[in-house]
């Protein structure tokens, strides 16, 4: 018996994890896909499932929910055409360059998927935001991901770089900067609602003074979105900070000292030595952060309930509302759209940025 | 020999390795490895890094699976047996001391795993620690010990349960030169005292020569020669063994052998009885030859550099880009750049087939 366990230890050790993932991750993933093609009716503690084909997706993309998921469309404005066409040209150029250089079928198909989604998102952007139309939850989620992660990356990295210098009170700063990460997102949501309160909040006098005393954050779409990004950044900059700090501190001392002896200025030292060293780590950190950012649901739910209208609603939140109105099919379909966007974005980023860098270094 | 192979503890066992092979995917790491190790023998496997010697050792230990072939310890076939049932102790190059356990706990670990009662265990640890003179350091952690002390802890852990086989994977290579010499002597003494069959892997030929009863020289996963240190030194079977043994290594000159003569552009050397070979190598050891005046020796060459090592002088000659080294007594003096001759006794010349490697022997007439 003992001998058997010893010989099959590999399987015994791996089995629980694999089983749990199969049951609670892979099975729901498949089930969710099937659900997205059905209408589910709850009846007396059980379910009645009816297959409806692409209807759930049709409704989201072209039907009555189109405004909700991707936005309202009218005419594309001149600016929209310019940006859209320019971006399309850039994408086409990129694909053609790839085909001409070193063609493989796997690489080509992967890039075509990236290409198709980038093109779709680009025209979505041109047709909604640049044409003065409201955009839907996909646009909002991408706003949270790209703008939020961008801000977090910039500030987190700068703080980490500052803290990696020889300064006094390094440990104190380190501990203070880490604090927001431990605070429950729900708590962050409420704390920032208090902060932003224009009549009772701590900055009420400031608002009065600049003449925004009666201004309500939650009724202006852009103010509400920015408000959520600020709260999200407050919470997640510590993560970027602590990872990037480790990255900066892992730069070998010899290298920077050798650079200084070679008469490199601080900027050159940063650009030539430090930055190339931390770049792969930075890319990984941002990938992790982006994966988590796509899932955002608690902050919009707490801070604005997705409002005003649907201005701050993320895709996850939309799926949750669909579930709450007992439309399980729609909830699954929306979730799958989110999954698709997430996977394509993150896989493209991973393959084209992180992986190609690794390949080059080898 | 007879005294050493005598089994004092009654626990030493012989090891038979029969055509053992190892494949990593399509890479053939160990080819037809066969050795019979007598009970109580000290066998050293010697070879350059990457020759498969550590793989062989790890296969004997059971840490790597055996792709094909058989392994017997004593009379038991252990080819498929888990490491812990093979009754083997191993000393690793890194010593593999458990950093979170004290010296006493480290030494006692094998006994703890064998569920030996605590009292007996303490006694055994005490004995083993005294044997390696560590009984005053039992409460320390490995990080508080010097390199030599760590090495001795690893040894104590190996001897504490009296295994039937010792395996050692370059155990001395992390020590500095002086300590290595001391530990070598201690190791040799301890092994003959305990009489436990030992297989020792190293790339250091001095360790091999001084420790071994027999040496097995490996290259590219193949055993080249097995024999006593003296045999492999003075009677190498091929070019590789000849070049690997000896420090400084054997000198080689390429040429051809025709009608009992070794011919090269600089010299003509008597090779009577050696069959004709197109690509032949003539070799001689630095200590077997002498520097003489130009034209008086077998070969003339320019002196490239002279090194004084204390007890001797090494004279290096430049011969068409290649180097020849001659060992001379410590009071020998010669200027660099001048031409000089090298002479040697005919009996100490070795000839090899440089295409395939084997030694060329004079036909027995």
């Amino acid at each position, binding site marked *: 018996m*003992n001998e058997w366990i010893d010989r099959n*230890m*590999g399987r015994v*050790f*791996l089995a*629980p*994890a*694999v089983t*749990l993932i199969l049951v*609670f*991750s*892979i*099975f*729901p*993933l498949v089930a*969710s896909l*099937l659900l997205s093609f059905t209408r589910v009716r709850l009846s007396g503690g059980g379910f009645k*499932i009816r*297959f409806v084909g692409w209807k759930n997706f049709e409704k989201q993309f072209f039907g009555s929910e189109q405004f909700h998921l991707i936005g309202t469309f009218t005419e594309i404005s001149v600016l929209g055409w310019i940006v859209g066409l320019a971006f399309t040209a850039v994408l086409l150029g990129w694909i053609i360059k790839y085909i001409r250089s070193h063609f493989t079928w796997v690489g080509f198909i992967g890039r075509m998927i990236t290409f198709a989604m980038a093109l779709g998102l680009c025209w979505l952007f041109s047709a909604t935001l640049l044409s003065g139309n409201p955009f839907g939850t996909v646009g909002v989620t991408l706003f949270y991901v790209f703008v939020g992660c961008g801000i977090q990356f910039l*500030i987190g990295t700068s703080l980490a770089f500052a803290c990696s210098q*020889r300064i006094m009170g390094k440990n104190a700063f380190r501990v*203070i900067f880490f*604090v*927001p990460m*431990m*605070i*429950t997102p*729900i*708590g962050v949501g*409420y*704390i920032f*609602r208090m902060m932003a309160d224009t009549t*009772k909040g*701590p900055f009420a006098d400031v608002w009065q003074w600049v003449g925004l005393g009666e201004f309500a954050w939650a009724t202006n779409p852009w103010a509400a979105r920015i408000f959520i990004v600020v709260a999200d950044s*407050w919470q997640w900059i510590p993560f970027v900070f*602590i*990872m990037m700090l*480790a*990255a900066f501190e892992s730069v070998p001392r010899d290298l920077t000292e050798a650079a*200084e002896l070679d008469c490199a200025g*601080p900027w050159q030292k940063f650009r030539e030595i430090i930055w190339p060293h931390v770049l792969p780590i930075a890319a990984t950190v941002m990938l992790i952060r982006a*994966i988590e950012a796509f899932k955002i*649901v*608690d902050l919009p739910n707490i801070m604005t309930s997705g409002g005003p209208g649907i201005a701050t609603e993320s*895709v996850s939140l939309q799926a949750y509302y669909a*579930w709450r109105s007992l439309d399980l099919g729609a909830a699954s379909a*929306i979730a799958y759209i*989110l*999954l698709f966007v997430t996977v394509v974005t993150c896989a493209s980023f991973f393959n084209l940025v992180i992986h190609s860098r690794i390949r080059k270094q080898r | 020999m007879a005294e050493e192979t005598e089994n004092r503890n009654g626990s030493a066992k012989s090891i038979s390795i029969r055509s053992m092979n190892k494949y990593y995917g399509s890479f053939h790491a160990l080819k037809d490895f066969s050795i019979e190790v007598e009970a109580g023998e000290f066998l050293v496997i010697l070879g350059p890094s990457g020759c498969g010697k550590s793989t062989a050792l790890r296969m004997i230990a*059971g840490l790597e699976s055996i792709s094909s072939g058989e392994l017997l310890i004593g009379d038991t076939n252990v080819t498929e047996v888990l*490491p*812990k049932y093979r009754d083997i*102790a*191993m000393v*690793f190059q890194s010593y*593999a001391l458990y950093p979170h356990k004290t010296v006493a706990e480290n030494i006692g*670990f*094998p006994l703890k*795993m064998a569920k030996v009662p605590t009292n007996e265990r303490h006694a055994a640890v005490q004995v083993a620690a005294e044997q390696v003179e560590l009984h005053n350091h039992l409460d320390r952690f490995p990080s508080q010990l010097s390199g030599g002390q760590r090495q001795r802890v690893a040894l104590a*852990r190996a001897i504490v349960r009296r295994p039937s086989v010792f395996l050692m994977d370059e155990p001395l290579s992390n020590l500095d030169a002086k300590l290595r010499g001391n530990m070598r002597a201690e190791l040799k003494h301890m092994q003959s005292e305990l009489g436990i069959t030992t297989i020792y892997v190293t790339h250091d030929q001095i360790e091999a020569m001084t420790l071994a009863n027999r040496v097995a020289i490996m290259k590219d996963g193949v055993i080249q020669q097995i024999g006593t240190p003296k045999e492999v030194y003075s009677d190498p079977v091929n070019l590789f063994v000849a070049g690997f043994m000896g420090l400084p290594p054997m000198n080689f000159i390429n040429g051809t052998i025709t009608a009992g003569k070794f011919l090269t552009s600089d010299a003509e050397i008597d090779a009577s009885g050696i069959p004709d070979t197109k690509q032949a190598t003539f070799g001689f050891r630095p200590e077997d030859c002498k520097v003489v005046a130009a034209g008086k020796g077998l070969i003339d060459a320019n002196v490239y550099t002279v090194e004084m090592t204390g007890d001797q002088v090494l004279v290096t000659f430049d011969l068409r880009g290649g180097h020849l080294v001659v060992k001379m007594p410590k009071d020998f003096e010669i200027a660099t750049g001048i031409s000089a001759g090298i002479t040697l006794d005919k009996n100490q010349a070795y000839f090899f087939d440089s295409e395939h490697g084997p030694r060329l022997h004079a036909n027995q007439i």
Partner: protein
Amino acid sequence: MKTLHPKSGLFESRAIGEMALASRIILYTLLLGWSAFVLFPIYWLIITSFKNAATVNQGPYFLPWIDFQPSMHAWYELFVSDYEDTLRAYINSIIISLSATALSVLIGSMAAYALSRVHYAPNLITILFFVFLVALTWVSISAFDVDWRVALAVGVALFFFLARGVGRLHQIHLHNGDILFWIISQRILAPIVVVVPIYMMFQSVRLLDTHMALILTYCVVNMPIVVWLMFDFFNTIPRDLEESAQLDGATMFGTFREIVLPLSRAGLAATTLLVMILSWNEYLFALFLSTTKAQTMPILVAAMNAGERGILWWTMSVAIIIMILPVVLLAVILQKYISKGLLVGAVKG
């Protein structure tokens, strides 16, 4: 300024690794400014918890005892008059996050250890058959009302037939890296994608609104993180140690317990902390899978929004403070391991 080296100026550093005065001033301003931005919301949270309706609604007061008289009103309300709900949610949160963390770290690090030490070569074809047949069996049972015994028997028989027959002929072997990637990539799944089927699963076995449902879910959701961090950590432990233990007669589990776990304390502590924070803070799964009995703190706090009188900020602040307190305490206790454990693994990966 007298101490400045003659050659150094405002923008010129005087020694390698040291900064000029101007850049140091900018640096400290930046760092102190950010500290204020980080700390002020927390300060406001704490003082709000000592306010009452009047001191909150009359506008901003900043300094206790100077601006306003602190009152324990909110604390009293939550701890004495309203304590039942809070206590239940608190205990639920503790039970769920502790169990989920322990389970996740144990199972995840076992898997990570196996992946870093044992070589696997599962056949992709066999796996695909397995997945395909499981899906087929499940669909035929649920959608086409086939008797489950028949479907299961046919599925198993087909699997063995295909795996033994076709699977032997065509082999595409996966490696440890593939398995690792598969496990880690599960983290990309947004909870919303899987939560509906999980909800239905737990409903069908009547486990909704129980601790078990949330524990299992959190355990799986956080497993990728554990596997990822611990895999890197285990890779830094020299293998010699374990091989030596193996020769000395330890079983693989013995080696894991005696040698590997004690040596990976730092990594385990950091991983535990991270998983603990994530489980403690989790919101969406709890929203779906718990209603009253298994309600966790985030859900309780989020629900405090729904009162008739608007949000009672003072009570809310107390609730948030006691909600974040355990995580902060845990972080303080495990603080010395964070930089050692989390970062080593993460930055390498």
